């Protein structure tokens, strides 16, 4: 594990093109974000091309999940870096963000043209309710999981952060910094993991 990015994968012919192409296709056609994309990337890099081994991929993905930003983007940055240094990292990163950039730019144009149409507004109103239901569902699941652990401090953080943000308009980034410091000082024990 204690070695610099290996150069082996990068020596295979057409490595950067293959890396770009396979990552681009996965990013372009996978609906559902990081937790769906990562297993697909793993299947390509580990099983199909053998550029990186399975255990190391798992370790790197767990780092990717805990870094700020988007999990799928972080995973492509770290895996790309492991396989071929900064160049590999930039290749995987651009292949991950280009497809949504293109798709969503196109959709945004359509949105502007259609959003004021009466019927589209009705449908969007219904979908807004659906999106609200999805976010409530995620919130309920996360809260349930946290409550099951029966730890006081995380519950206090949830309540404090929620109230400070919703009722006192405290800046979100300030809250994130404060909670990070609380974690650093008080929550380094394994039970909080």
């Amino acid at each position, binding site marked *: 594990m204690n070695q610099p990015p290996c150069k082996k994968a990068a020596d295979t012919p057409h490595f950067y093109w293959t890396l770009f192409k396979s990552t681009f296709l996965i990013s372009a*056609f996978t609906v559902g974000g990081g937790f769906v994309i990562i297993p697909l990337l793993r299947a390509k890099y580990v099983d199909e091309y053998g550029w990186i081994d399975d255990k190391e991929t798992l370790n790197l993905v767990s780092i990717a999940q805990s870094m700020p930003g988007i999990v799928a983007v972080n995973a492509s*940055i770290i895996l790309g870096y492991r396989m071929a240094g900064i160049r590999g*990292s930039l290749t995987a990163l651009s292949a991950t963000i280009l*497809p949504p950039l293109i798709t969503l730019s196109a959709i945004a144009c359509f949105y502007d043209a259609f959003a004021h149409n009466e019927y589209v507004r009705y449908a969007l109103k219904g979908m807004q309710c659906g999106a609200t239901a999805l976010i409530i569902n995620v919130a309920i699941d996360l809260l349930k999981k946290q409550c099951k652990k029966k730890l006081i401090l*995380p519950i206090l953080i949830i309540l*404090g952060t929620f109230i400070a943000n919703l009722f006192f308009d405290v*800046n979100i980034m300030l809250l994130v910094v404060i909670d990070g410091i609380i974690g650093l000082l008080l929550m380094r024990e394994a039970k909080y993991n």
Partner: protein
Amino acid sequence: MICLLLFLEFAKVGLFCVGGGYASMPLIQASVVESYHWISLSEFVDIFTISQMTPGPIGINAATFAGMKIAGIPGAVSATLGFATPSFIICILVARLYFKYGDIGVIRGILNGLRPAVIALICAAGMSFITLALWNEETLPEHPADFDPIGVLMLLATLIAVRCKAGVIKVLAGAGAGGLLLGLLRTQF
């Protein structure tokens, strides 16, 4: 100038969002809806809805869409690059540390504190989504009795569907069809 501002704003979002796609939504909302009023809450919820149905990570989708709405293609590119830049720098640094030293313990404490924070922020974003769905308002309404019956009906129906583990695409497609149907019925009677 607006592109530089977009880049910096989304870099801030990228730096402070920990915990995957849903965690980025409250941060993007705070920035583009509440601080700068670049887009309305209603448009923001539409972005969220569309991101759920299109391929790609939801955070990148939202950044692209918001950037596109605010400043066209240059805006979309600036917002997306801004979002990815902090990740790129931090991931490379941490990956180097990891290759050198193995597991990194200090970061774990910070993350343990941030995880509950993310839950709280998602709940807070959920509250504003609920306000919009039920009252078509951005903030808690002055007359809570003036709710939108279509919103109440659709929210209850979709919530039941979601709790019964219906897939995201099915729920959103159904919600779109339901909204269209109820909207048409309302104009008829």
